[in-house]
């Protein structure tokens, strides 16, 4: 296969598209790990849940309320899904995760992994795993844009833009605002921060809610591109964990940069040697772990 610059650019754009999803998901994981020290394995399932909130809101909510013509539109879903899932996250943190802070990391991982399996199992019971297409894509985002080197679907451009906007807004809040400094201080020394009159347990609860809300947001953004299916999260989450490991656990900027660049690396691999496309990220992970075990952007702990 000859590699014209158009082909490479086109694959880089697609890589950026998938990379934006990696970034937003790994960012949520990094925020949660940073503050809660929990490796949130339920992230993929909550991403799936976000997509389902959008799908069911569009297809089922109207008939359920007795208004068959009512569809919860895409823009509303972008707000509602993170709120619904974020609220579920708050419940999970309050009732379950809270009990595990004093014990080993492993328990949090097992608990969230169990939650993921339950969620996925329940949805598999009611919905087809081959996926249902989400038809609520807004009119304004339909069609394609001519980028000279390729026709790029408008919606995909939007998904890159909005994901990046959310990522950088999160980075800004955590690294550049007072609220962010409380959060970071809470990570370093919770009891001292609490002594200053800051409600650390509440902050932790809300952080978890925010982290999983971001996963749900990504789910809504993904719904019109990929089919909505109960297993959409489990397919993605393994790769996202690799991204987090490569970037360095708990590093905000690290997650964003690693997510984007690994997405593009995957895109390039799809043209150069397609069979390796699914594994190239894991090769990178092995390489990084051998050379810099704390991750590209991580600090040694």
């Amino acid at each position: 296969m000859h590699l014209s610059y158009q082909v490479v650019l086109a694959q880089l754009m697609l890589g950026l598209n998938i990379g934006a999803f990696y970034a937003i998901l790994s960012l949520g994981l990094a925020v949660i790990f940073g503050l809660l020290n929990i490796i949130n394995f339920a992230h993929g399932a909550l991403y799936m849940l976000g997509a389902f909130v959008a799908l069911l809101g569009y297809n089922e909510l109207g008939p359920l309320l007795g208004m068959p013509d009512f569809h919860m539109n895409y823009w509303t879903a972008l707000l509602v899904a993170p709120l619904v899932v974020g609220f579920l996250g708050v419940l999970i943190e309050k009732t379950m995760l809270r009990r595990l802070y004093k014990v080993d990391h492993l328990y949090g991982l097992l608990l969230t992994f169990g939650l993921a399996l339950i969620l996925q199992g329940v949805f598999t019971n009611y919905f087809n795993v081959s996926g249902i297409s989400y038809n609520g894509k807004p009119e304004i985002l339909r069609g394609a844009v001519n980028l000279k080197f390729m026709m790029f679907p408008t919606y995909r451009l939007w998904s890159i833009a909005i994901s990046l906007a959310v990522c950088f807004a999160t980075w800004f809040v955590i690294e550049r605002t007072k609220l962010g400094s409380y959060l970071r201080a809470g990570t370093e020394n919770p009891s001292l921060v609490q002594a200053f009159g800051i409600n650390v347990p509440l902050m932790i609860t809300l952080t978890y809610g925010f982290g999983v809300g971001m996963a749900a947001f990504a789910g809504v953004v993904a719904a019109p591109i990929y089919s909505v299916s109960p297993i959409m999260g489990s397919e993605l989450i393994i790769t996202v964990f690799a991204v987090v490991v490569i970037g360095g656990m708990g590093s905000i900027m690290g997650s964003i940069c690693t997510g984007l660049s690994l997405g593009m690396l995957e895109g390039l691999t799809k043209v150069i040697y397609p069979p390796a496309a699914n594994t190239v990220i894991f090769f990178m992970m092995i390489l990084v772990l051998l050379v810099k075990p704390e991750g590209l952007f991580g600090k040694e702990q």
Partner: protein
Amino acid sequence: MKKRLMQFVTGTTILGMAMVAGAAGISTDVVKIGVLTDMSGVYSAIGGKGSVTAAKMAIADFGGKVLGKPIKLISADHQNKADIASTKAREWADTDHVDMITGLLNSGCALAVQKIGTEKKVISIATGAGSTTLTNEHCSPYGVHYVYDTYALPKVAGGAIVDTGGKSWFFLTADYAFGHSLEKNTAAFVKAHGGKVLGQVRHPLATSDFSSYLLQAQASGAKVIGLANAGGDFINAVKQAREFGIVQGGQTIAGMLVFLSDVKSLGLDVAQGMNFATSFYWDRDEASRKWSQRYFAKTGSMPTMNQAGVYSAVTTYLKAIKKAGTDNPDAVMKTMRGMKINDFFSINGHLRADGSMVHDMFLVEVKKPSESKAPWDLLKVIKQVPGDEAFMSLAEGSCSTVKK
């Protein structure tokens, strides 16, 4: 010496006759039919619950009894995994005493079940699998390949597409036995008709994002992008091809295995004008319409060729038991091979020694939205291709149980 030989021959003949007589009637006093299909995965819309309904209809229409014994139906999900399919088939054969297994939506599963069938003398009638290896390298005296195969489909569609100007091809292929087999056969027909193959890219089963593969197909400059995949994969690929402006850019998408449910799911807007091969279309003639309306009343959708094929397969099997007077698998297979199979599904059908059920195939075209008068008015039949022309001949085949 000669006399003793005669005695021996007579003796064995009598013994043999006694054995056949012993096999008459229905073993275990019930005929059990198992539908093993994909209940929840990428192929569930093609077979799934619809196949079970079709099998139920076939049994009810037969009167629920054969040779005075009840017919029982069981079903299970093979999840498109060969190991699950073979475990289930083994369990059915050993503990449930199932006489015939049908459905089998993917080639991996069908090959696994056919192998168990050979070992346990259980008849398997694959209606959903495509790979021609079922009736060649891995053929079995108890295996039947009923609806279509990866030779007949491209033979009917591939040639027709090349002849109407689609000279250069690029394949998007599902990366397993079925996809490989479909790609290989299609490529051969494309070349035989004077076309050429510019390249191919393989994708895993159940891929959600085809964009990268589609761009490679686009960059190849091929006139026709051949999709050697099926079900959900086919639908996703076609949808995304439009999203990226591939069809608008002048390239044609050609599905090598398309089911009615796929066309319905894509909608006429997206699928219009597409040519493909099929064994069955509900609106083909009076008989097919009549049965399909009954099926529609039960399920709310029109049957795919696979679902209609399950009904036909079960009916043919039951007829053979009745004719043979026994459910002994050897006798039933022998009877089936001697039958003419003509019903609402199969036209000019007959079962060959290699297990291939040869019947007429159809080249169809997806209607334009303006041509469609009803929700399921989706296709028009362009050409009827005689079975012996569409399917691979016995001479070309490599089935070891067939004497050439």
